[in-house]
């Protein structure tokens, strides 16, 4: 018994190390790719200020940003900077990209978190229903619903929800993360997390918490439904597969009622792939967050990227995109670690 435990924990460690070693070249490839692709277009200072500043001023700014040095030495400095958490400076509002990441990133984190809750809360129960009524009308309807959630662009769903619930019915706010007075009030909370829900709770006024929650409802549903269909289909397929497996059959043979078989025996194992796919869905959610944030004027990273693009501040775009790439790589690593811990089969 003791030897089995030892060897299995050893294989877990080997798996984790291998998986971690794979993250490093992947992140490096992405940083390199983004760096060089963003330089193909030419000089970032020229794109941001061309026509608005004199030639000397552009030259001096280029010098102070180190952009007049050979590209390879710039690349090396950027790489070293990123390793130290320094993603460069924005050009148009001259602040460290890392500051933008912390303030705006909190907003994106908040949105993505709510969206994931919506996706799981909608996808998993509906997936169970679809599996129970396999090939009967509820299943057919839910499968169409899954395709439809996939086919609807997030910004269009956001527009429809806005038109219905904020403009026609007036139930929920149409945009922003909080009402102006709330946003001003929670500015001075300490410690300030920039996650409005936490800030509002720290401020201590329940009506502010409700205001923040109300603002999150429509964006969360919009972004959450984007991946809810994926979870629905995944849970359905996995439940159907698990329901056919031998150990479930054994439970049935012992006379366990069908509902209990599904709930107690099949469901848990069917959930393992959901955890794995969650890692992939984080990338989808972050991509969708850009569009959702633009739709609802949610001041997060996606909104900031769209804004910097309009201002042609490509150093800011480069920094944010690089950071997002690293975040995605780390999250997918963590998700793989979690699925390796809960499912021993992954390690082999």
């Amino acid at each position, binding site marked *: 018994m003791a030897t089995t435990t030892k060897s299995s924990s050893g294989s877990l460690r080997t798996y984790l190390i291998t998986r971690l070693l794979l993250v490093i070249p992947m992140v490096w490839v*992405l940083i390199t790719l983004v760096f060089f692709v963003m330089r193909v277009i030419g000089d970032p200072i020229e794109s941001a200020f061309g026509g608005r500043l004199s030639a000397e001023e552009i030259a001096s700014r280029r010098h102070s940003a180190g952009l007049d040095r050979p590209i390879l030495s710039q690349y090396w400095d950027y790489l070293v900077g990123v390793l130290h958490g320094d993603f460069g400076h924005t050009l148009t509002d001259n602040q460290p990209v890392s500051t933008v990441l912390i303030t705006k990133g909190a907003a994106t984190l908040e949105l993505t978190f709510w969206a994931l809750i919506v996706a799981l809360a909608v996808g998993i129960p509906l997936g169970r229903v679809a599996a129970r009524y396999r090939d009967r009308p509820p299943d057919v309807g839910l499968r169409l619903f899954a395709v439809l959630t*996939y086919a609807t662009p997030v*910004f269009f769903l956001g*527009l429809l929800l806005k038109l219905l619930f904020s403009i026609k019915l007036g139930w929920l706010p*149409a945009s922003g993360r909080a009402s102006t007075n709330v946003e001003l009030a929670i500015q001075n909370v300490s410690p300030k997390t920039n996650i409005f829900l936490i800030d509002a709770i720290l401020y201590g006024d329940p009506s502010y918490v409700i205001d923040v929650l109300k603002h999150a409802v429509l964006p969360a549903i919009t972004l959450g439904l984007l991946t809810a269909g994926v979870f629905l289909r995944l849970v359905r397929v996995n439940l159907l597969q698990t329901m056919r497996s031998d150990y479930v059959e054994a439970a049935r043979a012992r006379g366990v009622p069908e509902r209990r078989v599904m709930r107690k025996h099949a469901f848990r194992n069917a959930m393992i792939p959901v955890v794995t796919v969650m890692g992939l869905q984080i990338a989808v959610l972050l991509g969708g967050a*850009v569009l959702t944030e633009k739709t609802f004027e949610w001041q997060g990273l996606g909104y900031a*990227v769209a804004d910097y*693009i309009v201002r042609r501040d490509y150093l800011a775009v480069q920094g944010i995109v690089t950071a997002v*790439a690293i975040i995605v790589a780390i999250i997918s690593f963590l998700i793989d670690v979690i699925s390796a811990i809960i499912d021993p089969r992954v390690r082999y």
Partner: protein
Amino acid sequence: MTTALPESAQTEAVIERRLTRIPGLAALRATAGFQRGMLLAGALLVLFFVVVAVFAGLIAPYGFNQASANGVDFPTLAPPSAQHWFGTTVSGTDVFSRVVYGARTALEVIVLAVALSIVVGVPLGLISGYRGGWLDRALVLITDALFAFPTLLLAIVISIAIASGQSSATGGIVSTAVAITVVYVPQYFRVVRNATVAAREEPYAEAARALGAPPRVVMVRYVFANVVQTVPIIATLNAGDAILTLAGLGFLGFGIEPSSAAEWGYDVNKSLSDAAAGIWWTGLFPGLAIVLLVLGVTLVGESLNDVLNPVLRTTKFRKVELPIVVPISGGGP
């Protein structure tokens, strides 16, 4: 082996074999019930949009950028009426005409992007999988990194790099298509590469090599045909995703200039500011067009996937004629 079949069955078998050569029909014949309905509905939707795109000039009453007719300016933000079926935008253009021309833009970009992805991804996967070595490892690493990246952000980065300074209609369409291509090449590459690695050691490839065929011939004549079978499915499934990426780029104001072509995503973005005033027609129709086209393409892709994956296929019951077994006399215990 088939000598026992009666003559009529033989001709039937021949007809059946001929019919299955038409790809769409074969897929349709293999389905039943709900799956057949999905495939048909999807195909009809796609066909509808292809017709709209091809005959956009005949269907649309006005140009996509036209804000007046016969010297009279169109009303701005007018609700749907007999003259403007889908209403007009804030700049006075006809929403119906913009939606119709948007189908043309979408199909041009998608066809170009899918064709480019196949042309780049399939040979790359074939060579990488067949040759192996450092080239294979490097390509796998790069495509894996690209694959893990949020598609929209990747498309944004690429289109910033190639679209800077371009604003003509063709330039916008080509550069957007290239951006989408970069996003989807990794998927073709992966599938073809993995299939090639498996096919490389198959007896028929081995036999070809033993006969002295050079690597190029083995790849092109033997391995290729066996690894491209899944490509049409990926292409259809990707096409739906690509339409969403195109719309997302347009929504963020990328690629195609609004005056040079109509783009649905861009129009939905512009309608956001109308929404506050309760104006729904400027966003609803282009948005619905995206949903319906993606729905059509996805339904076709999903059904093809189901059909070619026998585990998921729901076949209709067929009458099976069992061969007449002549019992061997005295057989059995």
